[in-house]
């Protein structure tokens, strides 16, 4: 297999400008199918911006994002979600007005949601789909370890579990690529440990993981490949061992913080 | 009847537009003061104007209190209403969301309108103009002196406000709240008091607007709703939160309305401002001079 066959996401010549501010400048890289790829960098390096471009929340000033060799830069967020890229948010964005189970069930909306009319008429196929969604959602909660809280109000969960719930919801989109934005932020050591093994388990399922993370322990522990950004540009890419000792990476971190 | 020349007529529209525009600008400033500090759009802003005009009519005409004293009395009274509004209607809301706050200010506007009807009835009230009704002739146009008073008062309000916000401690504290509520409270500014003050201040400006416009257009209890909508249109046109924007927006709106009513259709007079509002909202929600993010709710 050549490298082209292996890559699920290909970022080419990407430029994102906000007025006079250059948020991203050509951080060309590819994400290998089935890998865990981490994006790190000092605050304001453009990591979340990059996520927002990949998931369609921002339209880049220039450049291309290819997902499975198809350009997705002009797609809307919900379309991108439906073709297999799902994400979590840095600021926890669970649906606070729903139960834990309903949060995960919503994740299936893009792929198997029923139309307004079918729902209103309680069409048999809509009811069937709804039952299937529920079953699948319960499966995901089991996988992620939140089954016993499935009927709790989502906002009654502690922060750690809210973050896990967000991952569960993203899994419900049945993605090929899942983008996690600082999943370990605000978690204690035990919780980030749980998270690390969860991310590995996701990889085991054949889902490619792309994550932005500040917690170096988590990053070094689980990543196959690490991309380092600074001021919107790529300054290094490679496996954890290489990145740890990379002079420009050390410089970027020491220079900034 | 004497035929008024076209240029005279256009001049008339211009002056009327600027006068009405000054009124809208004052309502718009009132909106902005409360919005900047609290991120609340006060739907009762127009009621302050109506109350201003009606109270003045009672004090000045019914009770015969001299103009200057009646003026001050009215402003004080309406300011008190503004204070009460914050204390009784806005502050007690436990979980302020945009929708609840909108509903609360609408509720207050209903209460004030209902109370105004109870005390003043449904008939319009008149006020004697500040300096008589002898029209002034300028370039073939005929102008009531009160029009000039309205424009003059807009200038006075703007000058006083800039002095307040630039030179006084309270004004600077309020500006700090507007920039960043959390930071302001960290440096020891009492945010609650600033919110209270913003209501007082915009009530006072509303009262002034009501007093000066009543000799031109009379005042009745239910005028507030439309004034609020027009004032808000001015706010949006100029850019929410921007003071120069409020003035500019108000004046442009006044001119559009005056020329639209004169040259196109007087029946649709009120629709012009609203079409402008919709146009701006749909195509450039940040307005002419604004660069605000679409509404986020601030804590207070």
């Amino acid at each position, binding site marked *: 297999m050549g490298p082209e066959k292996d890559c699920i996401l290909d970022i080419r010549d990407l430029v994102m400008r906000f007025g006079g501010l250059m948020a991203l400048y050509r951080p060309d890289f590819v994400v290998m199918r089935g890998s865990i790829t981490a994006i790190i960098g000092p605050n304001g390096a453009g990591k979340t911006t990059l996520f927002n471009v990949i998931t369609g929340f921002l339209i880049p000033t220039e450049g291309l994002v290819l997902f499975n060799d198809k350009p997705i830069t002009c797609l809307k967020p919900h379309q991108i979600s439906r073709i297999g890229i799902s994400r979590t948010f840095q600021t926890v964005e669970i649906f606070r007005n729903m139960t834990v189970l309903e949060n995960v069930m*919503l994740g299936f909306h893009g792929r198997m949601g029923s139309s307004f009319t079918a729902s209103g008429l309680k069409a048999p196929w809509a009811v069937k789909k709804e039952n299937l969604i529920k079953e699948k959602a319960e499966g995901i909660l089991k996988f992620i370890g939140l089954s016993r809280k499935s009927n709790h109000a989502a906002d009654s969960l502690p922060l750690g579990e809210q973050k896990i719930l967000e991952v569960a*919801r993203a899994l419900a989109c049945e993605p090929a690529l899942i983008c996690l934005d600082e999943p370990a932020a605000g978690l204690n050591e035990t919780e980030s440990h749980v998270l690390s093994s969860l991310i590995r388990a996701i990889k085991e399922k054949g889902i490619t993981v792309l994550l932005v993370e500040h917690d170096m322990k988590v990053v070094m522990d689980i990543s196959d490949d690490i991309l380092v950004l600074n001021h919107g540009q790529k300054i290094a890419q490679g496996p954890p061992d290489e990145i740890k000792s990379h002079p420009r990476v050390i410089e970027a971190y020491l220079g900034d913080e | 009847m004497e035929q008024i020349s076209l240029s005279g007529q256009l001049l008339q529209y211009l002056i009327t537009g600027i006068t009405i525009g000054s009124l809208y600008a004052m309502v718009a400033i009132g909106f902005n003061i409360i919005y900047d500090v609290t991120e609340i759009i006060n739907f009762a802003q127009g009621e302050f104007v109506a109350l201003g005009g009606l109270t003045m009519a009672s004090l000045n005409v019914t009770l015969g209190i001299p103009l200057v004293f009646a003026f001050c009395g009215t402003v004080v009274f309406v300011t008190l209403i503004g204070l009460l509004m914050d204390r009784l209607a806005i502050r007690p809301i436990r979980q302020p969301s945009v929708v*609840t706050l909108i509903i609360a200010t609408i509720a207050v506007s209903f209460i004030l309108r209902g109370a105004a009807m*109870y005390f003043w009835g449904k008939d319009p009230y008149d006020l004697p103009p500040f300096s008589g009704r002898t029209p002034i002739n300028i370039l073939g146009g005929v102008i009531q002196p009160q029009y000039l008073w309205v424009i003059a008062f807009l200038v006075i309000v703007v000058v006083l406000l800039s002095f307040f916000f630039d030179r006084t401690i309270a004004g600077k504290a309020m500006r700090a709240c507007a920039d960043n509520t959390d930071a302001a409270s960290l440096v020891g500014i009492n945010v609650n008091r600033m919110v209270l003050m913003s209501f007082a201040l915009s009530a006072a400006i509303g009262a002034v607007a009501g007093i000066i416009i009543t000799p031109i257009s009379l005042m009745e209890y239910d005028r507030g709703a439309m004034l609020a909508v027009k004032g808000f249109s001015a706010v949006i046109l100029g850019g929410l939160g921007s003071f120069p924007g409020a003035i500019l927006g108000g004046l442009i709106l006044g001119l559009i309305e005056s020329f639209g009513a004169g040259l196109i259709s007087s029946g649709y007079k009120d629709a012009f401002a609203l079409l402008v509002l919709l146009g701006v909202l749909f195509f450039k929600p940040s307005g002419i001079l604004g660069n605000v993010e679409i509404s986020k709710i601030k804590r207070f």
Partner: protein
Amino acid sequence: MLRYRKYPVLIVSLIIAFFPWVAAHVPAIDHYPDIMIFAGIYAIITIGLSLLMGYTGQISLGHAAFYGIGAYASAIFTSRYGWNPWLSMLLGTVLTSLIAIVVGGPALKLKGHYLAMATLAFGIIVFIIFNEEAGFTGGPDGMTGIPGLSIFGFKLNAERYYYLVWGIALLVFLFTTNIIQSSAGRALRAIHSSEAAAMAMGVNVPGCKIVVFAYSAGLASLAGSLYAHYMNFLNPSTFDIFFGIKLLIMISLGGIHYIWGAVIGAVIVTFLSYEWLHYFEELEILVYGLILLMITVFLPQGLAGIPEMIKNRFKAAP
């Protein structure tokens, strides 16, 4: 959130069904069924509005306009062009939904205050058009001679109209509750909670908002047609901003997050304005203001939220 069971719906339906019979035997309330017709008409609007505002979180102060467009569409199609009333009603509803799609497209990109003001402005503009386009609408004097409704040659008198209106209200209630309890309703609640997350989960946020807006506008239009054919005359003042805000009072009083609340609120406010507030005459606006303020401060979940409030209190107590 709300999980409807069949029995409460059945019981309430039975109460509504037998109410005219009971009222006919109690002289003091024998005119209540007439008032209930209006309550039913308003309930059709508030159910849709509750889905839009309570569940999807999109405020609208302009639904009086859609109500009016429906009423005038029925009136104009039937009395000026002689079309069948049922056809006119259907066409009016479709037309109104289309207008809602056109207006909602740009308007629903706005949030909070902006959306409130945009819908308010739309409502006022439509109201001005009702007044000014006298050639079509009769202007401020209104329109008369709107035909009543009949089914298979049976003319619907007040008693039958009662059942027509509440029958439609029941269907609308069931349809809307089904939506809420399905994946479509979940998507709407997701939009209310976090638009960004909803989008990331594959929810077509602008599309959903427009569909709900058009649906609620269509219901308002349907209610307007029912009103027009019942009253047989129209006057623009029925559709002013005040009515738009009255709708807001209905759903806030009943409980904005409950479809039941929309029905309760519609019934109570209708009785307030047709019966109980007569004593206050035109001061009713003051009373409405006070009610609205009391609810926002003391009962933010509305009347339908009281059971849950009590339940939570008991849960917290031990």
